[in-house]
């Protein structure tokens, strides 16, 4: 077991190294950070001096070695725009994104499960047909369009919800949360719905098809034959088995949801990581960009490694195959 864990951690480190190398080697494609830091009239000579002092003229290997050395000490560089350690910037933006993803996941869970089950049990019901038809439309409309339309309808025309930002936030032991103020919650509603609009139809369809499949299985028929109550069959026996694949897909989709926050956050001026990422691309803030790529990569690697280790604990056959 110990050997297995060590091996997994070493593999994870190797993956991180690859990610950092990739991130580092593409950073030049995003443009020249110096250009964004100086006015247009600054002379070529002065720009060159600045580039030299910032070490941007060093050969790739030197720059990368320096980066690795600092990274080993937990320093991923200083953001050109924020002029603060990149890691610090990313962590300060994380709460906004996590709260947004949390709220949208809540919406997805609370709506997709009942609707999906209903559509599976009563596929010919008018509500099921509307839900299925609607989900096709929902999944086809890009997030930014949904978001703009919502702003137009609910902010400009009806004036129900604020059009941008996070509103009032409360400092909770260093975590700036918008979940605890009425203003913060009002600001959260539209972005959360917009973000969930892409996952919701997918999950409704997924739950429906999985549930329909389960309802066809032998043990459900047997349950009917045994004379169990329909509700008990649907919600206890069938639904539980429906959930397994849904959870697996859900885990993967959570990552995709994080990616979609880029669009949602940009439209709603939501000060989270996605918005920060897009801005750093536009500003050629390459340090922040590379740090963010490594951060996201790191999160995925850590989660996967932990899952692997836990799997190993739970299911010894994995360990055997890992030893090959």
């Amino acid at each position, binding site marked *: 077991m110990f050997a297995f864990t060590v091996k997994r951690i070493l593999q994870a480190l190797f993956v991180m190294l690859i990610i950092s190398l990739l991130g580092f080697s593409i950073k030049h494609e*995003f*443009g*020249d950070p110096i*250009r*964004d*830091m*100086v*006015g*247009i*009239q*600054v*002379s*070529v*000579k*002065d720009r060159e001096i*600045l580039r030299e002092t*910032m070490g941007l003229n060093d050969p790739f290997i030197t720059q990368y070695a320096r980066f690795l050395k600092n990274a080993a000490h937990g320093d991923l560089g*200083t953001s*050109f*725009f*924020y*002029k*603060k350690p990149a890691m610090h910037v990313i962590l300060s933006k994380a709460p906004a994104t996590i709260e947004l993803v949390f709220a949208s996941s*809540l919406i997805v*869970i*609370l709506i997709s*499960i009942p609707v999906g089950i209903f559509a599976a049990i009563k596929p010919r019901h008018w509500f099921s047909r509307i839900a299925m038809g609607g989900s096709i439309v929902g999944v086809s409309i890009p997030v930014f369009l949904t978001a*703009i339309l919502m*702003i*137009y309808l609910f*902010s*400009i025309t009806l*004036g129900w919800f*604020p*059009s*941008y*930002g996070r509103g*009032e936030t*409360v400092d909770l032991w260093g975590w700036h949360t918008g*979940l*605890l*103020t*009425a*203003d*913060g*919650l009002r600001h959260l509603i539209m972005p959360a719905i917009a973000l969930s609009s892409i996952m919701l139809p997918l999950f409704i369809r997924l739950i429906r098809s999985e549930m329909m499949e389960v309802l066809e299985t032998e043990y459900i028929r047997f349950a009917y034959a045994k004379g169990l109550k329909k509700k008990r069959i649907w919600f206890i026996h069938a639904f539980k088995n429906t959930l397994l694949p849904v959870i697996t897909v859900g885990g993967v989709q959570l990552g995709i949801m994080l990616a979609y926050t880029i669009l949602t956050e*940009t*439209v*709603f*001026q939501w*000060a989270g990581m996605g918005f*920060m990422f897009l*801005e750093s*691309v*536009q*500003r*050629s803030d390459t340090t922040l960009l590379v740090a963010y790529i490594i951060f996201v990569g790191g999160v995925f690697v850590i989660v996967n490694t932990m899952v692997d280790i836990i799997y190993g604990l739970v299911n010894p056959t994995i360990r055997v195959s890992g030893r090959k």
Partner: protein
Amino acid sequence: MRRLLALTTILLMGVALFISGCSKQEEIDESQKTTIHLAMDADPVSLDPHVQLSGGMLAYSHAIFDPLVRWTHEMTFEGRLASKWERLDTLTVRFWLRKGVTFHSGNPFTAKDVVWTFERLQKSVDYKGLFEPFESIKIVDDYTIDIVTKRPYPLLLNMATYIFPMDSVYFTGADENGQDKGAIVKSGPSFALTHESGTGPYRVTAREHGVKTVYERYADYWDTASPGNVQKIVVTPIKNTATRVASLLSGDTDFIYPVSPQDFKQIESNDQTKLVTLGGSRIITLQLNQTRRPEFKDIRVRQAIVHAINNTGIVTNIMKGFGTTAGQQGPKGYLGYKEELVPRYDLEKAKVLMKEAGYEKGFSCSMISPNNRYVNDAKIAEAVANMLAKINIKVDLKTMPKAQYWDEFDAKVADIQLIGWHSDTEDSGNFSEYLSMCINTDTGYGQYNSGTYCNPKVDELTMAAQAETDTAKRTAMLQEIEQILYDDAAFVPLHWQNLAWASSKDLAIEPIVNAMNFPYLGDLVAK
């Protein structure tokens, strides 16, 4: 599981309602009436006014600091921290400073703050070029200074609009990291990045970089004659154009800029909001690279191109009227402006010229343009490509974001390159110095002349105009430059970009906005 989730939700909502109940009372205080929300496309990069020369930083400087003099609507000078000034000789101008002015830190403002700031400007990477013509600054007494230039310099007052005195006492010494408090740091933390002490109408009381900055009126502001009555300004950058407009229309913000032409109608038709536009001074031009493309060496080909471009069509159809068609570099109101130099659209003549030059069948060339730098830049470039197709010039156009554009521009990778230019000195000479003088890497002149146009006469006149303090003579020189460039078809002028702001009808923004696009927020009046 579901029960647990439902429970959490109810609990959370309960807590939220409870808290919102508490915070409601605090929200409604007196200052609410004169608090406004301002949304711009970008946040000031730093609280240090000298770290970068950009429109956004100057707008910030005018709110937190005061310059020695500032521009009025009529493009004349108005004294701010300098109460009056007088030219002593061809090299020296004396400034008398306002008395009884204090910085936000409480320190009194005196001549030594001006000297300190001036010397800091000369060290700033962004400003040192502009302050190159200056020799020295001398303290006559606590409230009088002399600014001396190396040679007779007609734009001394124009440059004084960039001198926003900083609190020299406050910024002297070392901060907690042992770094000099006055240091100008481009790429790391500095004291001035997060601290300000100016004499301006507002103080920065809260700042979350890239998210929100709060300006509060400085109680001891010297300019008691200012009509400004806004106590608090919450400045939020809203990058997305559609969101910015939506925030105004929904009443979440009170004042926004910039505004895109496609949103004008929405703002004007809303009975809560209004739009204010002004002619701007940023020229949009195309440069024809004569080194890369020998055809462009032929003046007839360049003339043909200028005649093939329908400036009015671009301004009306793409810019929705949000621009002024241009036939020269500097806009009306600048010394070099010549009424007769108008756009020359004439397709028939263009075809004849191409034929004369022996290119009736045309040729192919490449072109690059940014797609997020100027108003509708990529669309303008596409229109130009289509117009040139009519005289058989096949244009291979590539557009890219500004982050990548300038490196390509500098490398002169294409035959036709688009560039917009605003004169930092608000004077005609600046256009020629950067865009049309012969490229000289030692002096830095012609730095953005990717057309590689070179005419010694233009160089000579530009240099002479730089050192000519007699306005009549200067005007003649600058106009001659425009005439030469026009006759040579040295470049293709398209239009001057207009400027637009939008606000709620309760705000009197008309008197405070200006062609330089730094609204004088201190004088903003809210009903």
